[in-house]
């Protein structure tokens, strides 16, 4: 019964994946002849300052956005946990942006933050946070903040829902028992709820970290890598090498490199997940 899935994944995922490895061992321009060069592309990747910068920025982005999504997601999950009808309505509202595509969301927020004509810019200006002459997308940190705001708006609902499912799997009695034993609200959250939530937390972490490390659309559309190429992510850099400089071989090598990093990071997180399974 699994064979349709195996055939699909084999043909349209595994084969292209193997071909990517193969291409990465070549000098492979988009057009024209290619030749085998062994591991040269990998060696070059290690000494490529542009890719190094992109990698660093990607890590920075991941480090900043992961805790934000985490805390907000958990906060929202706690909020909508109430057993009143309104909680369900709010839950739906918080989740709504999840069904919007990344590209559509990026275009929307790009407009929101435009200097002068953008409604969000106008609000911030009225609140005295930005100058009428300023430009949110012209500074690296402000541009990054704008992207983070968009991503948070778009995906925090999914995190909320995943965490909510984890929260609901914790029997009420356990928490109540702790409370009867005299644990404060905060203490019981810290010592009972959070540890029991660990499998879900690990899962959410894997998704959100992998998603952040592969970030591309939002930067491509909202910042275009600017200002001064300071917001180019790893995938953005792969895209540029493959489709702007047409160096498919080098782009493939960078992809393999990124995959390796992701595999290590994810394996580490999976280990976290595995360990808690024994509880």
């Amino acid at each position: 019964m699994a064979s349709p899935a195996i055939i699909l994944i084999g043909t349209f995922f595994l084969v292209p994946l193997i071909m990517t490895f193969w291409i990465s061992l070549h000098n492979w321009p988009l057009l024209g002849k290619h030749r085998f060069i062994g591991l040269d592309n990998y060696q070059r990747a290690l000494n490529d300052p542009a890719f190094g910068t992109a990698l660093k920025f990607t890590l920075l982005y991941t480090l900043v956005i992961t805790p934000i999504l985490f805390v907000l997601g958990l906060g929202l999950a706690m909020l909508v946990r109430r057993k009143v009808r309104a909680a369900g309505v709010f839950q739906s509202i918080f989740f709504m942006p999840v069904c919007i595509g990344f590209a559509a969301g990026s275009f929307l927020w790009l407009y929101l933050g435009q200097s002068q004509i953008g409604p969000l810019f106008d609000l911030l200006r009225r609140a005295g946070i930005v100058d009428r002459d300023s430009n949110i997308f012209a500074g690296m940190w402000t541009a990054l903040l704008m992207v983070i705001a968009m991503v948070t708006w778009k995906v925090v609902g999914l995190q909320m829902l995943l965490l909510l499912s984890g929260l609901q799997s914790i029997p009420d009695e356990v928490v109540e028992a702790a409370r009867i034993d005299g644990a404060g609200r905060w203490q019981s959250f810290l010592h009972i709820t959070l540890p029991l939530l660990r499998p879900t937390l690990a899962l959410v972490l894997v998704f959100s970290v992998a998603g952040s490390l592969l970030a591309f659309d939002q930067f491509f559309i909202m910042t275009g890598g600017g200002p001064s190429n300071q917001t180019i992510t790893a995938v953005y850099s792969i895209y540029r090498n493959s489709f702007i400089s047409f160096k498919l071989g080098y782009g493939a090598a960078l992809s393999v490199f990124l995959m390796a990093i992701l595999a290590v990071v994810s394996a580490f997180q999976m280990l976290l997940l595995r360990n808690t399974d024994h509880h």
Partner: protein
Amino acid sequence: MTRYMKDVRSSMPHIAWWVVCVCLALVFLYPIYVMLGMALKGPAEQGLIPPTLFPNAPTLENFSRLASVQGLNVFGNVANSVVVTLAATVGTVLVATLAGYALARAKFPGSGILFFLILATFMIPFQAIITPLFMVLKTLGLNNSLLGLVIVYVTFNLPFGLFIMRNSFAAVPHTLEEAGQVDGCGIFGGLRHILLPIVLPGVITTALLTFFASWNEFFAALILITDQDKFTLPVTLTLVSSGQFGTVNWGSLQAGVALTIIPCIVIYVLLQRYYVSGMLSGALK
């Protein structure tokens, strides 16, 4: 009184809870409101500084511009999007349900490897394998065809679907299914009559996630389809909203965004009860 006590137990008083939730809801809805407002503004109003909160003179001009670009068949492209999205959704649900059941129940050789592969798909930058994927489709005669696009979407939505379906099946007690088999249903009969109703939320979740992803997908559609009549909506919208030398018509762009977002939101609102419970029962584990 006791009920009330139970509700408040979580953390904060009733009124504060309402205030916080309503404020957050406004924050979440604000961008969607702006998009709709902008899509309805006429050309003169779009560039006003500061921007207006409500469209002064609502007009459908932006939408009619979408439909009137010469040479482009926007409605045909919408039809393509609908067909591709529905086919990909049905395909993903079928394949994911079968494989999810197999993974959760029958132990077969290599099921571990398969599951590992599924997880690996999460970690691949899609842009990285698009060229080889293009070559594969070309070899199979599936490039520049909507069927090829459907297959690609099914493949790339399969992992999450499989994940959800496997966990949905895993959550169903064995005994229930065995009872069905004793009654003479057989494996497939058991799957259909007994298990499916229980895992329906999981199925709907998979379907909705595939629907959203396929409906919004741009990059693969752009690279794999070379015939204008076969374009899907996201590709067409990029064409419509961009002008020469990078100029952008913000009104048309937001109208396009609205056009892509509205079907998703409508479907979400209609099916959200199943969706949410599907996520709650399926994604966990």
